[in-house]
């Protein structure tokens, strides 16, 4: 395995000895076989020399051990790359951005420190997965929901730090975050929000504390390692129901989206909006007309019925030609048999892995391209037409385009899932295609909310207002807070000074 860049063998061996004294021999991994386990399982560089691989992995179990590891890294100038559960699949998995990085594998920090059923929050360590928290809630019979993303094996901390999303009214995971504990690049320990006030009982109840709000700078970030995080939970609703609004003409999409925006932004329609259309797939050559919008409602039994009824009335007034179909309705708690019969229970707060049926049995993995699109009919039509056309021109397989959805409130995401294959040439073309889509999207003002480690520089390049003022500000923060540049160099296209100087 590679050495950390710029570090000689003697120093690296000495550093590993120091790590072993902190976490124990068993939890420092340096053999080829063990370190190989940290490769990106869905790497677009699969079986190519550029596939990033760490030099070693260290698995602390406490915050104090993380602090000690960070201090060791400073002494030896080792680049660190922290992972929580390592399931950031489609965006880099458990792999570092820079080959030779030392992994800080936080999976062993898997304590659920608190679950409040009355104030509806949890305090967790990074190794806690959505499955773990769900199972604990069920075991204790608590009447709270989590908002799982598609991969239930993901970490609440990791997914939130990557600003991931789910499907329920709590689907914007960073917006549901409340209070962090962070090991800073010099090993100092910081608690954000009310966590900075000794004895406060409100760390998971009031996000902002006093002074500038910091939590955002630790997301998609290389400014620290988060060791605890508060997450707001949803009180278990009485009921859920879904309804579908359909229109026959693409010309009506603008009016439909305006009405749905009103309903969503006034909290009548909750959860993710999904827009189905033949235009947003490859099924009929792209000449199709018409859209179906899936609306979701969570709340008291009678209220969800009233919300659906009101939504129909409002859309019908504007679009008398629209048609409406009742979707399924569920009352909670569901029985075990009801849960077992659901192909995808994620919108009901139940984590699963059904999304991994995408390409299963055919591919070696997938790669997500995920641009943020304005929530207007005009922009959605433009985006599906442009993306679909570009993918067809580039010969990308037909199942790549996922229907537009309001993955986050007030905007649309169109996911494009590229297959990772066993064929190096195909993967090379996929990387080229991905880069072309990044540019093509940016020309139209569509930027990725998150990207794979292989494309972070290209995506950050697109956020270029005022001669890249955003990146320059990030670099300024990086150099001030992490002068040795040890935490996650290159994360989201932000390189520390000594790496920038080498690249120049």
């Amino acid at each position, binding site marked *: 395995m590679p050495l950390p860049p710029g570090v000689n063998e003697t120093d690296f061996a000495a550093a590993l000895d120091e790590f072993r004294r902190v976490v124990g021999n068993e939890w420092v*991994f340096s053999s080829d*076989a*063990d370190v190989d386990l940290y490769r990106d*399982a869905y790497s677009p560089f699969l*079986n190519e020399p550029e596939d990033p691989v760490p030099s070693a992995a260290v698995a602390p179990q406490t915050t104090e051990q993380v602090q000690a590891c960070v201090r060791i890294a400073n002494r030896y100038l080792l680049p660190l790359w922290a992972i929580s559960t390592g399931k950031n699949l489609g965006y880099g998995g458990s792999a570092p951005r820079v080959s030779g990085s030392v992994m800080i594998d936080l999976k062993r920090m898997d304590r659920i420190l608190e679950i409040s059923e009355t104030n509806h929050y949890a305090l967790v360590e990074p*190794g806690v997965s959505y499955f773990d928290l769900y199972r604990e809630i069920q075991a204790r019979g608590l009447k709270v929901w989590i908002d799982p993303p598609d991969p239930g094996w993901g970490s609440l901390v990791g997914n939130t730090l990557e600003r991931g999303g789910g499907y329920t009214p709590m689907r914007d995971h960073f917006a549901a975050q409340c209070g962090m504990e962070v090991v800073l690049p010099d090993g100092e320990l910081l608690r954000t929000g009310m966590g900075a006030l000794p004895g406060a009982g409100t760390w998971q109840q009031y996000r902002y504390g006093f002074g500038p709000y910091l939590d955002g700078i630790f997301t998609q970030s290389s400014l620290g390692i988060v060791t605890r995080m508060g997450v707001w939970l949803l009180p278990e609703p009485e009921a859920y129901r879904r309804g579908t609004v359909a229109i026959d003409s693409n010309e009506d999409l603008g009016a439909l989206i305006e009405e749905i925006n009103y309903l969503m932004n006034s909290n009548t329609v909750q959860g993710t909006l999904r827009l189905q259309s033949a235009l947003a797939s490859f099924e009929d050559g792209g000449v199709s007309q018409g859209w179906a919008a899936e609306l979701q409602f969570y709340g008291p039994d009678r209220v969800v019925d009233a919300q659906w009824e009101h939504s129909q009335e409002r859309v019908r007034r504007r679009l008398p030609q629209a048609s409406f179909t009742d979707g399924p309705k569920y009352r909670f708690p569901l029985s075990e048999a009801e849960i077992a019969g659901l192909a995808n229970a994620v919108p009901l707060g139940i984590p699963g892995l*059904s999304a991994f049926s995408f390409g299963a*049995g055919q*591919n070696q993995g997938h790669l997500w391209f995920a641009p943020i699109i304005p929530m207007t009919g005009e922009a959605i039509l433009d985006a599906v037409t442009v993306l679909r056309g570009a993918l067809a021109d580039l010969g990308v397989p037909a199942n790549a385009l996922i229907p537009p959805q309001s993955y986050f409130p007030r905007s649309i995401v169109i996911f494009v899932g590229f297959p990772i294959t*066993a064929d190096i040439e195909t993967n090379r073309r996929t990387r080229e295609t991905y880069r072309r889509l990044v540019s093509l999207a940016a020309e139209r003002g569509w930027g990725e909310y998150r990207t794979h480690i292989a494309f972070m520089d290209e995506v950050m390049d697109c956020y270029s207002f005022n001669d890249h003022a955003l990146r320059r500000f990030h670099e300024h923060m990086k150099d001030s807070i992490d002068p040795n540049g040890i935490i996650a160099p290159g994360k989201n296209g932000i390189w520390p000074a000594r790496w920038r100087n080498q690249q120049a």
Partner: protein
Amino acid sequence: MRRTAGMVHGVLLAAALGAIVLPAPARSQENEDPGKAHYDKWCTPCHGDGPGKPGTDVLRQRYGDRLPALLEERTDMTADYLRTFVREGIGVMPQFRKTELTDSELAAMIEYLLR
């Protein structure tokens, strides 16, 4: 090196032909079996029964009536076969690290599957 579909078919075939069936050890109650607990935690979400289980769906598609789609019903697997897939992954199934399943936890899980 990650396993790819072609490599895997060879391994699967070898395992199927080998058809090693180990005698079932005396079992304690299921909820006391640490191997089953590890299986339930790490494998069931993808390889369990019912809809929305991509691992089971893929194996059903691949084997048809020749082998059970549920890993817990298989009798043709060997310890090496299982260890290889857990540590190297296959298709969209990623490899699992030792912080997720230690070698001894993996051994217990394999023992459960080979019971």
